[in-house]
């Protein structure tokens, strides 16, 4: 066992493999970032839709609520397969990367929508009522009253979600996107020891995820308003 590791380590950490893995890590980060950022903007609109008042907007609210409730209850793996086959049924040559980004986006939308809604609801009602009294339009209320106060509440969990999603994108390897987990399986299939390969990949994910997590915690402490700062 140890002999095998000692034999393989110099071969495994060769320049070629490292470049391959770095590229794969880049793909992982890029698709998570793209999917989550696009998802964030869609989620913002979804929440706006969900909070439209009035009887005639009921279908709008229903669509928004059912989207959020349904897609938070379907595993990411199932969403990936659904997106893959749905897109392949209608578009013949879609790239796997774009399919992965769409799947991530669909999932991230549902989760960040709840985060954004929580942020909006953290703003005291009286302020919204005051804005209404002063004849602010709905968009003005949102943009000038709610968002400036809600964003310190929204941004930290949204970033935390994105960081935790870096790990969940490992599942995208199932449809063959060249990201970190896919490359790991490939290297394992080439005959490298599973302990070595998956240990290294676990460490690679750790080096991406851990510093970002700490950054997120720092940001949260930084953005918290003085009244809400954590007790030491």
């Amino acid at each position, binding site marked *: *066992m140890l002999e*095998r590791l000692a034999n393989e380590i110099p071969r495994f950490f060769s320049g070629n493999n490292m470049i391959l893995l770095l590229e794969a890590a880049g793909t992982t980060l890029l698709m998570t970032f793209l999917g989550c950022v696009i998802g964030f903007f869609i989620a913002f609109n979804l929440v706006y839709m969900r909070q439209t008042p009035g009887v005639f907007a009921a279908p709008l609210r229903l669509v928004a*609520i059912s989207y959020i*409730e*349904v897609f938070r*209850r*379907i*595993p*990411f*793996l*199932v*969403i990936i*397969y*659904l997106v893959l*086959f*749905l897109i392949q*049924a*209608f578009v013949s040559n879609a790239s796997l990367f774009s399919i992965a980004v769409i799947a991530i986006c669909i999932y991230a939308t549902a989760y960040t929508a709840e985060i954004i809604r929580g942020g909006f609801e953290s703003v005291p009602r009286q302020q919204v009522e005051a804005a209404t009294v002063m004849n602010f339009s709905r968009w003005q209320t949102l943009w000038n009253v709610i968002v400036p106060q809600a964003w310190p509440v929204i941004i930290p969990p949204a970033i935390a979600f994105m960081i935790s999603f870096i*790990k*969940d994108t*490992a*599942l995208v*390897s*199932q449809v063959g996107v060249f990201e970190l*987990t896919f490359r*790991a*399986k490939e290297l*394992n299939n080439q005959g490298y*020891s*599973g*302990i070595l*390969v*998956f*240990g290294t*990949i*676990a460490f690679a*994910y*750790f080096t991406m*995820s*851990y510093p970002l*997590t700490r950054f997120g915690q720092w940001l949260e402490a930084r953005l918290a308003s003085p009244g809400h700062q954590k007790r030491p």
Partner: protein
Amino acid sequence: MNYTFQFGIALDRLPELLQGALLTFELGVLAFWGGALIGLLGASLKIYGNRLLYGLAQTYVVFFTNTPALIQIYFLYFGLPEVGIRWSDYTCVLIGLTLNAGAYLTEIMRAGFVSVHRTELEAGETLGMSRFQQIRYIIVPHIAKYIYPAIANFFIVILVMGTSVGAVIGVDELTGQAINISTENYRWLEMFMVTAVIYVVLTFIASISLALIGRWAFRVKAKIF
């Protein structure tokens, strides 16, 4: 360009899918309870342990929460046979998920332990409560009320996100069963749509029962939606 949906073929295989759903539920429950035990131990170590035990628990949590569950399971499944430990795919998924859940539950439970204020215990003591009464009437209700929503939510996450990872190494739970059947009849889209619906129904049942249990047992106003 044209795709004809044939849900009949997918619905014919519903019994097999439901069998998969049962396995999903079983995996979810086992991993959750295993994880809860680990979490209880980890949280106690982090709060009452000395520096070494604290460091141990902290390393475990940091490592397992910062690497993907999929890689942990791959490590168990493809890595461990090299040192002579051969587990079946089911065991690998169960152990991987349990360890993963344990790390997250450690943090959740620690938050619960920390939330009990000294003053509450002192008040209890002043009222002449015994140690057991303090635990029964102050600590447990307080912790339960504080962490129940988070734990109930986490159970749903394991039930959905966690167990579906098993499909990747060939466990026949709901997603795995859907993949198996689709490779036979090539109706991937319909199969996965039906699977998605089953997942939604399964988690709704779980959410509603957890909310009811929370209301009945801990007087928690757990939100269903």
